[in-house]
């Protein structure tokens, strides 16, 4: 659209030095695991791009993914919301309400159809014809179908929008599902996590602005750069696992020395995410650094498949069926990746038999 402001002017307008902008672009290229020569392309693309319109839909949500966006440090949150994109619909923070809000969505659908980015937060209830979530008298399902099927790109942020999340956990009272299931046939990038980490989301947006396509995805349609590596392998406490140094009780001497939380139920050996390296809140910390185990919040259907959260992961394959967390020590290193199909099934069976969903099944493999 002719009215759209080209980015270089926008950059000057907000007093951003070229040096800082280049530094940001370099950081993004690093984060996305792209070869270094792409830095120039990112810089060029961001400068040449008109501000695309973004609409952010919230359904059965806690606004955790919205709050996470507000924690963006690079680029700074005000630039994300006002300058990088035209962030036009987002109920938690937009200026207008009621008719004024609905009118924005209608205008975007009419004027920018096929060109805007849709972001979805929260699960979508399907029971009872969708009455468990209505906005402006319309069901979440109805809105999701209409808005996402006319978007240039759709991103599901957080566990709930990806796979139904907590709302879908057994017994799933509202028939909640994630976006891909609610609106079959659309292409979705899933940014799991509870909530999503804004550092990853910013990188995905930059990638899209640069290449007009999404980064490489795994079988769950999650970007590989963020979800491809085991937490256990990136963990700052890994050496203590290898050395057999474990926290044995909350607040014990090991917990003060920063020893491994495996025996306290940490799911890091079975979870992938770049949480330990990107961390949270401008890279300040992550749960293990605060002394608590990982709950695998970026794993598929983690609420059912990874709970109970304080139960140590089951025995490690290759060390005999009876080797458990209690016995793991010196010499047991690595090799724990992907062991938890058994754990997931065990967790599912723990749930009461005969529940409406029969407990949570282990996640089915989706085609890539």
């Amino acid at each position, binding site marked *: 659209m002719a*009215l759209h*402001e080209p980015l270089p002017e926008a950059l000057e*307008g*907000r007093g951003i030095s070229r040096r800082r902008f280049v530094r940001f672009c370099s950081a993004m290229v690093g984060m996305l695991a792209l070869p270094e020569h792409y830095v120039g392309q990112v810089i060029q693309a961001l400068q040449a791009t008109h501000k695309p319109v973004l609409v952010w839909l919230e359904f*059965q949500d*806690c*606004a*955790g*993914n919205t709050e996470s966006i507000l*924690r963006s440090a690079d680029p*700074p*949150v*005000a630039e994300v919301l*006002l300058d990088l994109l*035209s962030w036009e619909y987002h*109920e*938690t*923070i*937009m*200026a*207008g309400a*009621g*008719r*004024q809000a609905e009118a*924005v969505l209608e205008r975007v659908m009419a004027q920018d159809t096929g060109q805007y980015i849709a972001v979805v937060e929260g699960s979508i209830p399907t*029971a*009872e014809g969708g*009455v*468990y*979530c*209505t*906005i402006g*008298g319309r*069901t979440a399902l*109805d809105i999701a179908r209409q808005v996402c099927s006319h978007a240039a790109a759709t991103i599901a942020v957080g566990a709930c929008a990806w796979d139904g999340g*907590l*709302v879908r*956990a057994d017994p799933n*009272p*509202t028939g*909640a599902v994630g976006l891909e299931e609610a609106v079959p046939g659309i292409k979705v990038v899933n940014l799991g996590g509870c909530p999503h980490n804004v550092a990853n989301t910013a990188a995905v947006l930059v990638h899209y602005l640069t290449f007009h396509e999404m980064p490489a995805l795994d079988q769950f349609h999650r970007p590989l750069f963020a979800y491809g590596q085991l937490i256990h392998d990136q963990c700052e406490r890994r050496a203590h696992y290898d050395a057999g140094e474990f926290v044995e*009780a*909350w*607040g014990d001497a090991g*917990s*003060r*020395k*920063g020893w491994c939380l495996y025996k306290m139920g940490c799911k890091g050996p079975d979870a992938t995410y770049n949480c330990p390296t990107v961390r*949270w*809140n*401008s890279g300040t910390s*992550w749960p293990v*650094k*605060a002394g*608590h185990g990982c709950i695998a919040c970026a794993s598929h259907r983690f609420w059912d498949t990874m*709970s*109970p959260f304080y139960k140590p992961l089951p025995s490690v394959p290759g060390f005999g069926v009876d080797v458990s967390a209690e016995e793991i020590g010196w010499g047991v290193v690595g090799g724990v990746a992907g062991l938890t199909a058994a754990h997931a099934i065990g967790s599912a069976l723990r*749930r009461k038999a005969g*529940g409406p*969903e029969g407990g949570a099944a282990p996640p089915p493999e989706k085609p890539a």
Partner: protein
Amino acid sequence: MARIVVDPVTRIEGHLRIEAQVENGKVTDAWSSGTMFRGIELIVRHRDPREAWLWTQRICAVCTMVHALASVRAVENALDIEVPDNARLVRNIISASQYIHDHVVHFYHLHALDWVDVTGALKADPAKTSQLAQSLSEWPKSSTTYFRGVQQRVSRLVASRQLSLFTSGYWGHPAYRLPPEADLMAVAHYLEALEFQREFIRIHAVLGGKNPHLQSFLVGGMSTSLDPNEPQAPLNPERMDFLAQVAQSAKTFVDQVLMPDVLAVAGFYPEWFALGRGPGSYLSYGAFPQGGIRDTSLYFLPRGILLHEDLSRVHPVDPEKIAEYVTHSWYDYREGDQVAKPPAEGETNPRYSGPRPPFAFLNVEEKYSWLKAPRYDDQVMEVGPLARVLVAYAAGMTEMKTAVDGVLAHFKAPPAALFSTLGRIAARALETQLLANHIVGWIGELRNNMQSGKLAIHNGEKWEPATWPASARGYGLFEAPRGSLGHWVEIENQAIKNYQCVVPTTWNAGPRDVHGHRGPYETALLGTPLADPERPLEILRTVHSFDPCLACAVHVLDAQGQVRGRAEART
């Protein structure tokens, strides 16, 4: 006579719908409806009560941590667990920082645009804006050049016709009354507050691993072990320094930006001290223990109830007197919809009976909300910062009395002016200031404990479920930033049998009860003037003054053990 609808109500958490009857430019009746339901209390049943806090924290992330704290307190209450002093302090610091973060974000990002015309800033003289800012505060970002830069930024947004979040605003609405210089100053502070909140809440990253959705709570204490000599301890001298520094920066921001802005904006809208009057009775559970959790008399913010706008007497709180109606809520009670049920014996059978979507209006004569209607001793209560400040004021808390009297003197207003839309805003700001003053002290106490070798952070005596009785019941009360929060838990055979939350926004945004008594939002909207009913900005002013959080407000429990499964709910 016309019915107007505001749905979605934006700049809140969650899904809220307001329907209002308008006559001669004034609201004559109003209905508040929560339009989203998840059933989280059903989902936590049969699970390990020690992890309930991880689940219930996800009720809301704008109010992150508040449900985590209420949950661990409920389980600790059921199992009779006392937490170590360091855990109390870490919880107080986390809670106080949540208050400060939440209240700052509320004022600037959720509420300010009801009073500030962003486009008004374009007409401002940056030099006069600088004079205005310097007359109000010592905040250093106040030069003419600075405000000119902000103005240019707004001007570019407007010229590009891509206003992002500001696209849908009520710009030029006749109810806006700030001079352009105040508009420009407020827009500058809106942008500064976006960065402030991000930096400040790093306190939660240190004490909780991340924000939102902290991950350091434990039944029996916290996971943040402390040690003066261990560089890898979650809390060590270096991280204590960081906490103290960030807390100090919050005090500066609140003293020099938030408080002067609130007073300045309020000064241009004095009639809102007489609008938005609530039901007149106020509830506070009290918050921030300074001793054991049971020693409520030592809470930093006192517990109590005020009835019928009477500030001369603070009544005690008896949790047994809390009960909820579903007369106008989309649930059935087995004994009929005329009774109120206490949370410990609560019962919820979701039964949507509203119009099939898409719909234009709700049937407000019947059931019209996913929120229940909580009552205390059968009376409507307002909860939140205003309730807490009034209870503290009436209870004679010196610091609060001085602060409140100072604000009243500033506006030459009597205490009755506080029962209003602006009263809520002023109370929230005062409370923010009070906590910004005190958080530094709690961090100091924690540091002293660490330095003197007092390192206990968790009481593990009853960590193992084998140590628990066969069945136990408990409740955990807390004052969340938005008001009185309670979790009730029943544990049987080491698992959750029942779980129930009664949440601030349920008190404030709930529908009518069996007597037809309106909820606080519904009452407060009566008499609201509307300059342009097509653009009902004034409705947002009063609703936002409560700081709605709808994700928190909708909940479900069936105490009789009859889970309504998905198959049944689908019939």
